[in-house]
């Protein structure tokens, strides 16, 4: 199988506290990989390390075979094909939905291009396609403040899509969504996964069960178990530290 991301012996510490401790895993092309685990397990920090927001103390993150992303800065990582969505929806609040997409869709992000180049037809069509996919075409001229929480999340996923990443990192994309919105988001992810690998951090176990190809359980910065949803669910250690111990997953099991 073809792997897109190899995390090798990755350690991230904050003032001596090891948020991520010797993590080693491999993510294959086309996967929808879920990182689960109790709060403070290091899931978000792991995403932060992949997208360059924190610099690891040791270890490597190899993307597409040989690019060590820990050497790149955030915007360079985006430009080699890794997109990131943050937990709190962060879109540009004072620009229309369309303008938000416009900034994301452009591939040449140089100063020169942003002054002299306008969008070409292909880019405009792609924006419109994505807007239809995420269901925001009608609201393309609104500013995000007129959008619901779920719609903001979709807009951000749409912006990610417009970047055409090879790997997408999503931090709790369905947090704060109702069941129907959650399902729409899940379907959206499946659609995206056709040409893109996805890593999701999520607490909603139902959502995990429905859409995960593979699950990585993190606990206190280290990998506790990895496998399919059913494999992970039957692991006694996982049940002890997370699923069965009054963790967020309990009521849904």
């Amino acid at each position, binding site marked *: 199988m073809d792997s897109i991301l190899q995390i090798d012996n990755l350690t991230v510490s904050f003032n001596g506290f090891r948020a991520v401790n010797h993590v080693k895993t491999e993510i294959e092309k086309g996967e929808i990989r879920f990182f689960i685990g109790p709060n403070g397990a290091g899931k978000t920090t792991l995403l932060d390390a992949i997208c360059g927001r924190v610099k690891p103390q040791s270890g490597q993150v190899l993307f597409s075979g040989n690019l060590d992303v820990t050497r790149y800065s955030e*915007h360079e990582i985006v430009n080699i094909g890794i997109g990131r969505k943050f937990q709190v929806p*962060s879109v*540009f609040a*004072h620009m229309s939905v369309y303008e938000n997409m416009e900034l994301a869709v452009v591939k040449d992000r140089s100063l020169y291009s942003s*002054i002299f180049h306008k969008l070409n037809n292909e880019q405009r069509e792609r924006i419109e396609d994505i807007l239809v996919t995420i269901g925001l075409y009608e609201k393309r001229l609104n500013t995000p403040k*007129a959008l619901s929480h779920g719609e903001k999340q979709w807009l951000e996923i749409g912006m990610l899509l417009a*970047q055409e990443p090879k790997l997408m990192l999503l931090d709790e994309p369905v947090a704060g969504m109702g069941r129907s919105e959650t399902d729409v988001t899940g379907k959206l992810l499946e659609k995206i996964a056709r040409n893109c690998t996805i890593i999701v951090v999520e607490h909603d176990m139902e959502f995990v069960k429905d859409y995960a190809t593979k699950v990585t359980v993190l606990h206190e910065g280290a990998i506790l178990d990895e496998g399919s949803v059913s494999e992970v669910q039957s692991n006694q250690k996982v049940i002890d530290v997370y699923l069965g111990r009054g963790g967020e997953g309990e009521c849904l099991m």
Partner: protein
Amino acid sequence: MTEANVRNSRFDLRRLTKSKELLVFAFLILLLVFAPLFLSIFRVNLLGKFIAYAILAIGLDLIWGFTGILSLGHGVFFGLGAYCMAMYLKLEAAQGKLPDFMSWSGLESLPWFWKPFTNSALAIVMAILIPTGLAFVIGFFTFKNRIRGVYFSILSQALAIIFSVLFVGQQAYTGGTNGLTNYRSIMGFSLSSDTTKLTLYYISLALLVVTYLFCNFLVKRRIGRILVAIRDGENRVRFSGYNPATYKIFVYCLSAAIAGLAGAVFVPQVGIISPAEMGIVPSIEMVIWVAIGGRGTLIGAVIGAILVNALKSGISDSFPDVWSYFIGLAFVFVVLLMPQGIVGLVKEMARRFKQPPNHTEHLSTDKAA
């Protein structure tokens, strides 16, 4: 009201009347074109000075109103541009001899860095290039390492102090506290003649139009959206694949270049430049022009600069004490009560006048907030 809310309302207003801005600008320029018909040459000269300030305000608005970077050291760029021009004027006045203040300070020959300024064209180019170069160096070492927000503002303010102290201290080369003054002519035309003054006025006005149109072009392009995006969420911009440092350095350099140009326009009309024009007080006053006019709109910057300075020359001539109270209270008042400045106020009034409050619209905005 949070800073985010303030920005919110601003953007909506800007969208509403984007095209009207150009109309207002055209009207304003028309007024300024015909102003000399009704004003004494003394007043025209004064208006020329305000126009120089308006040019600077456009650049300052670009970096503060649009990009959210508050520079409290733009007096330095303005001053550097002005000094470049003044060096040329001083050399022309000296007619091949050593400028007066240099011989008073005991210099015997012209310092090497003064020599290029015998050439008027070169002086004008330098008036723009030197501020740009300084901004590049400062911008490179601050923005690239993510020194931002108030940290940058305070550093830029320190820059203003440093340069004014430096220029006062190097009396033999800069004229010290007195600055550079007593010019005679510009490119052979006597500076005291009314025709020269009028010509300079119209040149300033033309440069104001050019600067405005250029910046207007920029903010309408994608870069304009990127600048606003940097103001509203710099890290989000970074995770969209843009390097904010590049854009910030660019906009800082551009606004420094515009400030330098403004300085070069200022000097021949006012007849003096001294370190007092580049210290912290003038630098922060420049910010208040933009704030009063309406930050984030180019027209606001122009209106603010001209209006505040017209008021200043009106009030401070007769009551200098009153001016301090006025400008001080204006700072507080504008920031607290009309953060969008005059332009925001006018737009808000126009909107209320045009559409009576729409019930459903209110509901939807309430929900979103």
